[in-house]
């Protein structure tokens, strides 16, 4: 039985309402407990900032990222953030690391741990390729993982919605989550993946999807209702239609409004909208393109049924990867960049395009501002999850850099002063003086995630929570993050200690241990008669259309070595 005592920690834990208070933390067998015996190993935090382990609720770290690796062998040489990217030879405790936007699996585990993160959610997993995603999960050390399963352009889903069979739809979702060992429902450009199979797209919520006689709005609502019917721990996780197009903020708000009528069965939001930066564009073309963040923030401030994440941009090279096939085609043509495209049989599409965000480009400058505007204009940090949609908006290794954008107006002004004149009139950021506190930052990087994903053992340091802890080399009383942003960035780039499940994994910025993390998945129970009726339909799909048989489709237990099964009762 391992015991650990952390003394003199200045704890910042928004879930418990603790705002930088000095206290001791007791850990036993991987959990936070009331007290420990005198045999416990002692760490003196010396008054340093202590938070629960970070939780990245939307990242691309397994699956499509492998296509990104193949397309960008040059990424293996990039070393833009010293100590957190590029090539690092193996040590006694770590394997070799390479890459910046598309690091190898080991590097993903080590680098997240260095930033104080202990849990990640891979935000796009087509069921057909879920095995591969789990194979990569197995090779990402330290972190706890979960994956969201793609259902937004799935034939079986669209047919059940068209035929008005919500119970069979819920049964299919339950089976799909089990088959892919997934945690929740992800919808990307609802219906657009199927349209893209015919070289088309859907432009808004009410375009019919070719051959299926359903609209994106019907798909979104159908899946939203199924999500609640099954009582899933996370709401539907939506990448809106029209991503990346000027004027799309209207579609985003329409999508948000659509979910006002969906009543969540658990104590959480009924909709999570992801990487909203890419969906908060006003104007009618790239010429008169401007921020739509104020309109979206206005709406979000007035409602309580949704949460969102940023998709903050980071200047420099990025690799976009998404199940939104048509947007990737458009990106590649517009930017004359490399393009990879995939048709995932009956389930979805996807694409990968590398690109470079430059502060000299007025469009990129405005995009950069929109992410920050969203975080600052939305008053309640419990609705905001911090992300860069890594590596779409930029690699996760830049999170400390991005924190300084949120915490320091001075830092923002420094960057804005280098923007082209044309960009300045298109954003509202120069007029915003809000600066986030450590408390608000902790909310956006761990506590909000705990609530959004209904994982009470994550993102907080209450008794009974997982002993996932990050101790940063910052004395909260002795630092002014609005001025000393370089110090903040340095401290968040390499923790003094990262503790994962009671094991010290990072000490002084170096990897100390590399335990295997857990994989969370949801097993939703549905009535057996509905389940068998659904399987009759599904058998036809497999016989007629799939290139694999149903028996070869399921992710087997061997692919998930440390599973955590979350059981729910449907209907």
């Amino acid at each position, binding site marked *: 039985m391992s015991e650990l005592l952390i003394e003199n920690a200045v704890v910042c834990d928004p879930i418990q309402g603790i705002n930088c208070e000095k206290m001791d933390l007791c850990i036993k067998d991987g959990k936070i407990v009331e007290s420990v015996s005198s045999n416990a190993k002692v760490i003196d935090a010396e008054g340093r900032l202590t938070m629960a382990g970070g939780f990245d609720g939307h990242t691309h770290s397994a699956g499509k990222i492998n296509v990104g690796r193949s397309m*960008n*062998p*040059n*990424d293996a*040489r990039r070393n833009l953030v010293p100590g957190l990217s590029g090539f690092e030879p193996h040590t006694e405790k770590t394997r070799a690391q390479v890459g910046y936007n598309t690091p190898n699996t080991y590097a993903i585990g080590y680098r997240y741990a260095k930033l104080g993160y202990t849990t990640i959610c891979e935000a796009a997993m087509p069921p057909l390729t879920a095995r591969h995603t789990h194979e990569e999960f197995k090779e990402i050390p330290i972190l706890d993982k979960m994956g969201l399963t793609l259902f937004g352009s799935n034939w079986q889903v669209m047919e059940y919605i068209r035929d008005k069979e919500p119970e069979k739809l819920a049964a299919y979702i339950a089976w799909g989550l089990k088959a892919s060992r997934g945690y929740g429902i992800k919808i990307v450009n609802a219906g657009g993946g199927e349209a893209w199979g015919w070289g088309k797209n859907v432009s808004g919520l009410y375009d019919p999807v070719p051959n299926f006689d359903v609209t994106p709005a019907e798909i979104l609502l159908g899946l939203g209702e199924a999500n609640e019917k099954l009582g899933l721990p996370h709401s539907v996780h939506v990448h809106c239609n029209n991503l990346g197009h000027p004027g799309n903020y209207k579609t985003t708000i329409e999508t948000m409004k659509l979910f006002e009528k969906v009543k969540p069965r658990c104590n959480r939001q009924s909709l999570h909208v992801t990487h909203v930066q890419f969906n908060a564009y006003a104007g009618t073309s790239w010429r008169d393109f401007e921020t739509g963040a104020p309109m979206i923030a206005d709406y979000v401030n007035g409602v309580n049924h949704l949460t969102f994440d940023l998709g903050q941009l980071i200047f420099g090279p990025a690799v976009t990867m998404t199940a939104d096939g048509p947007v990737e085609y458009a990106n590649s043509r517009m930017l004359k960049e490399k393009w990879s495209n995939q048709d995932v049989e009956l389930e979805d599409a996807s694409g990968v395009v590398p690109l470079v965000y430059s502060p000299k480009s007025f469009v990129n400058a405005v995009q950069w501002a929109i992410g920050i505007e969203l975080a600052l204009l939305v008053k309640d940090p419990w609705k905001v999850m911090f992300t860069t949609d890594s590596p779409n908006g930029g690699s996760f290794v830049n999170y400390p850099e991005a924190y300084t954008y949120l915490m320091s107006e001075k830092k923002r002004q420094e960057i804005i002063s280098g923007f082209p004149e044309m960009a300045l009139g298109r954003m509202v950021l120069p007029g915003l003086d809000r600066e986030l506190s450590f408390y608000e930052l902790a909310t956006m990087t761990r506590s909000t995630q705990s609530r959004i994903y209904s994982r009470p053992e994550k993102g907080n340091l209450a008794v009974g929570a997982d002993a996932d802890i990050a101790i940063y080399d910052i004395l909260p009383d002795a630092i002014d993050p609005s001025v000393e942003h370089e110090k903040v960035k340095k401290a968040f780039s390499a923790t003094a200690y990262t503790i994962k499940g009671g094991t010290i994994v990072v000490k002084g910025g170096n990897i100390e241990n590399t335990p295997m993390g857990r994989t969370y998945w949801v097993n939703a129970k549905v009535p057996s008669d509905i389940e068998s009726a659904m399987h009759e339909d599904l058998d036809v799909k497999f016989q007629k259309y799939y290139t694999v048989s149903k028996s070869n489709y399921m992710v087997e237990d061997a692919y998930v070595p440390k599973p955590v099964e979350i059981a729910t009762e449907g209907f």
Partner: protein
Amino acid sequence: MQIITLSLKAQNKIPIVADTVNPDNFAGKTEDEIKAVQVWYGNMQCPLSELFNVKVEGKDSAENTKIVINGDASRVKRIGQGMSTGEIEINGNVDMHCGSNMKGGKITINGDADSWLGCEMKGGEIILNGNGGYYVGGGYRGEACGMKGGKITVNGNVRDFLGEHMCGGEIHVLGNAGLLPAILNNGGTIIIEGSTEMPASEMKKGTVIIKGKVKDLLPSYVEEGTEEVDGVLYQRFAGDVNVSGKGMLLMKQCESH
């Protein structure tokens, strides 16, 4: 002037990765310090003195430092990688990636060079007195730019993909070039005195002059009359139209199937 002479002790089959061998790294160092410089030998690192006899004369700044490498260095890779000044003279053959990412200074090779000579070079000069391999002045896999500046002169022949993805600088080949020179070019100048095949495919910008025979000119080039360069008249072509390219291809004679 500081002159460092490295003589290979024995012929090696296992590759030596000598990316630490450049004037910037050696300047001002004593003989013992240079002997201790680490290089990769297969999968392990070892001091330079295990593989080379080291002789150092004088002590000076990087600008006035010359490295002379004697012996058959055809399994010694990455000599002069990233160098910004000074001079390297190689009296023998050299392995891949010599002068890669070079920013300044001069490398002279009195032998043959293997592939990727001067890849992603940004400045300086390379003179190759023997033959070159593939991808002379090219770019790393996946990278958008190969050579960006500087000059490579090859007195012998080169193999395929000369100046692939070139974005600037100049390559002058006195002999023949293999297939697809100037492929994917986006700037810079390539002059080939000898013959070549299928030049300048997917070229967007830049100038390619071929003085010998061209076999299989790509159909995606449009004839635009003639152009005189240094008193010699060439046929002038523009392309590659497949990629809306504005590159200029000058040549004297064309052979097609």
